[in-house]
């Protein structure tokens, strides 16, 4: 089942409240959209396995609450993350302006300095856009991030955003560890698994 998974990656979604972090995640993991998604309390968690360039990666995605008051709670979950998705709402300039604070926070609480960052401008399906695409682009370039605009509602760019991020993480040496590398126990389990499979194949030939 899990044998061919290259690695498990911890991904974090942060950004101001109401920018659609949970919606993006829901769109990515369940391919659904719920206009009435309750505001997240603390952190939420979802898992999805995706395949990028033939490498299967299991993503443990931590969705965080954007409210100021929760911010004292959530940064502890930044620990050990390999990738972070920083979301703003293209129709609300204030969510874009606050990005600097989020980056600072990330800088302070993140335990590694080579974490891959992606900036996502959400809600591009809406008409009352307040942040131009170029502004987002400029911000991302200034802070060496990946950038994409997306809409959890129409599904635009969501899959792509996660895939891009994972690909970038996998390309960064030393950022992730292969499943079999560091855990002796797991390795032996894996080998057992292979053994069984090999046997099965042989038997069916007879």
């Amino acid at each position: 089942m899990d044998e061919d998974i290259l690695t498990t990656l911890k991904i974090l979604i942060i950004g101001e409240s109401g920018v659609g972090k949970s919606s993006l995640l829901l769109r990515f993991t369940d391919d659904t959209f719920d206009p009435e998604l309750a505001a997240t309390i603390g952190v939420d968690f979802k898992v999805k396995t995706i395949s990028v360039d033939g490498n299967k990666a299991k993503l443990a995605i931590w969705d965080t609450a954007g409210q100021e008051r929760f911010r004292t709670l959530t940064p502890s979950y930044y620990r050990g993350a390999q990738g972070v998705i920083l979301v703003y709402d293209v129709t609300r300039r204030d969510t874009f302006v606050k990005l600097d604070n989020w980056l600072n926070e990330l800088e302070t609480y993140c335990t590694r300095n080579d974490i891959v960052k992606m900036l996502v401008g959400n809600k591009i399906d809406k008409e009352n856009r307040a942040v131009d695409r170029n502004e987002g682009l400029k911000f991302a370039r200034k802070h060496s991030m990946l950038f994409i605009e997306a809409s959890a509602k129409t599904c635009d760019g969501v899959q792509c955003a996660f895939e891009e991020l994972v690909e970038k993480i996998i390309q960064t040496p030393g950022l992730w560890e292969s499943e079999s590398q560091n855990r002796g126990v797991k390795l032996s389990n894996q080998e057992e698994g292979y053994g069984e499979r090999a046997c099965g194949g042989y038997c069916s030939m007879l």
Partner: protein
Amino acid sequence: MRGTAQWLHKMAADSEPESEVFEITDFTTASEWERFISKVEEVLNDWKLIGVSSGKPLEKGVYTTGIWEEKSDEISFADFRFSITHHYLVQEASGKDGKEELVEDVLPLSMQDLLCMNNDFPPRAHCLVRWYGLREFVVIAPAANNDAVLSESKCNLLLSSVSIALGNTGCQVPLFVQIHHKWRRMYVGECQGPGVRTDFEMVHLRKVPNQYTHLSGLLDIFKSKIGCSLTPLPPVSIAIRLTYVLQDWQQYFWPQQPPDIDALIGGEVGGLEFGKLPFGACEDPVSELHLAATWPHLTEGIIVDNDVYSDLDPIQAPQWSVRVRKADNLQCLLGDFLTEFFKLCRRKESADEILGRSTFEEDGKEVADITHALSKLTEPAPVPIHKLSVTNMVHSAKKKIRKHRGVDDSPLNNEVLNTLMLFLFPDDADKLTDGSEARLSTSRNNPPPESEEYNLYSQFKSAPSDSLTYKLALCLCMINFYHGGVKGVAHLWQEFVVEMRRRWEKNYLIPELANGSPDLRCCLLHQKLQMLNCCIERKKARDEGKKPYTSDRSPSGSSGDTGKAVDRSGGDYQKETEKERGEVGKSWESWSDSEEEFFECLSDTEELKGNGQENGKKGGTKEGNKESANLKPEGRLHPHGKLTLLHPGEPLYIPVTQEPAPMTEDLLEEQSEVLAKLGTSAEGAHLRARMQSACLLSDMESFKAANPGCCLEDFVRWYSPRDYIEEEVVDEEGNRVLKGELSARMKIPSNMWVEAWETAKPVPARRQRRLFDDTREAEKVLHYLAVQKPADLARHLLPCVIHAAVLKVKEEETLEDIASVKKIIKQIISHSSKVLRFPNPEDKKLEEIIAQIMSAEAIIARARSLKAKFGIEKCDQEEEKEDLERFVNCLLEQPEVSVIGAGRGPAGSIIHKLFLNAQRMTESSDEVATMTSLDEELKRSGSSDERRLNLGAVTDFPPPAGRELILRITVPRPAPYSKPLPQRMYSVITKEDFRLAGAFSADTTFF
């Protein structure tokens, strides 16, 4: 299946009508020897060594600066395995076009190389390169674990194989076979070209035949070997190198000595301080200096060198080069410190086992001796004095150990322990009343915060260099080295844990830890200490707030219960202090068993009080918001800007809230695991939100208490402003008004926010159930600390020690400015930040890091030794000093360095002096007198000849430890009318080794 398919395929092929006539070659009877030869040919083919070899003439020194590579394969002769290896200098691909212009009878490259003088005596090369000057060759040698080829017939057989293989393939690369024992490095070989052949022959003896110790004897043997009847013979070209070894550095004895620990404890801090790591080599890191005097281009007849006279005076040699031999297994202080500390990681014993007492034993004894136990109860407990001095505390801890062990031989003596504790807890020194104790200087020069160096801790996952954890790591490192190793470590750690508990009980903050919740970038132990500090801080705030608290409350409480509550809390307080005292007393006796019952009480008091208060209010809250509006607001922090409550219109107040619980990374891990385990289902998500809603609920309760009569909209406007949507609407009267409502997601019926809001009671933060149970967390930390074995400690603190070591190396390097060390430091940092950040790094990787640090230390030590030897400090001429510094730096980084100006340059004259001193030392007994006059003598005497006369029997240099000669000539062989071909002979004479390596070429066209 597969087999069948092939079979069918074959059948189809066979059935084709065309039939051909095949010529059959039968190899079925080939001998092992033939097969061996064909195997050699096959390998030469595979490696593309067939055909005319081409290449540019060799540039000067390219053998040293270029890259050498090798390719290997295995072949066997019957069941005897050989390894075949191609060694070659990597060269730029020479233009292929040039190849076609080559005339057929051009000599193979290797034969040309025999005469090339640009790469004589390379400092580092394969021996065959050194002996024959070849840029490329193939060696067949017995494979590992196979016996040497000893018998003459076998040697000949091998050589014939080589000859046949070369002939068959037309390969022009010389092919050698290794014969005799490996250590003798005996090779014979052959190189073939169109109509020419070179034989490589060798003589290796233990003792030098007398007639070959000098040039004239060697010339004789060379000429007789060539056997050329041409008269007159063209002159032989000669290159000579004499190597002199200097081992005696007596005049410079190594200044670094192991630091004197007694002096340190006695207060006289010498080279070593607590919190500083030692540095440097304990012995001279440079064991030998080799001076090579070279005459690169001599012609026969220019100089005389025979058994009675020699012109070869090293002072006169046109080229000097020097190499230094590093001391083997150099002992360096920093490296030793690190290695010893790292060894701790592998110890298995617990602190108790090491200190030689078992808890079982102790308990058993106490139970058995009831009278003793009783008397203990009646005995006045060692009541802690408020202004407790460290000395006092240490004594008590020590007494404890003494009592348990029955003897007074605790690993650390009082003095050492006192000094250490004062160093670790300088705030205790300030509290000392007698003032007689020396204060430790607080002026440690730490790198300024925000500097790259200071932030190294986040890369190493260690701790800031001005933190207690860092200092503790250094102290343990030193204790481990100088004070009873693991025992001392266990002892200090126990004292440390006792001190931690004392601070917790006395509400003394732990010094030198950053405020706030644990810094997850630091090591776990550091986080634990920070956590303990958080607990102490809260407990302290609570305890200090107690007195004003009670008095504060009576006016505020309007219900009849107030008096009771005050009474109660007062009583509690008293009880508490009693308990605390008892607790403290107990802890001096034994802190290892759990005291939960006491501490639970302590933590419960607050709640009891809260409940008491709440009971009185319950009637009011239940009736809903409108009624509760009449309640007095409580726990207000400050008004929230200009916002007012929606209904009563009062200003909206931000409440005093509970701070979130600080977390260490292991707790966090635990928690996120629990949260993750709930799965990704809707129920899981719901449960997860519920588990985390405590904080939200607490904030809601505080908010309600601070804003009587408020509603969820008010709360949301403070807490999640974007979920309160305001719109300008035009009302019935045509006025524009702001109308606000909750966002859609907040209006979902019975969503968790609404749910929480409904359950929330108006309770100010100070009367709420604590979100963070500091008592429990502190006990958990203290327990965690107490059960750490010395090995665990070492693992926790190793990053700090490595961090400190890197800083030390960096600091020392800046004094010397060595490029290679700078590079190593960079490597160490990047390597460490990869290894140390992951939990449980592999021992092998840690060892690598330590080895890198040690190599950096050794290089710096070597640089210092060389600088002292070459008297760089004493040199007053700026230019000369710079030259010397450059020279020393080259010595560190290159295998061999040529001396500018040979014996006459500044470096040369120093080397000359060094040898001269060593010579004098060995020759004369009254060293002192000679040494002092030496300098003047050197200056006075003009030429070397003069000096030689003056000195009489004493020569400046010892007899050379090695004599190398290369003789070259181009003559026709074997007959006078043959083609003139390169001939070469190399000879080396050392104390117990004599070798002649000859390459003699012959024209094979008519022979």
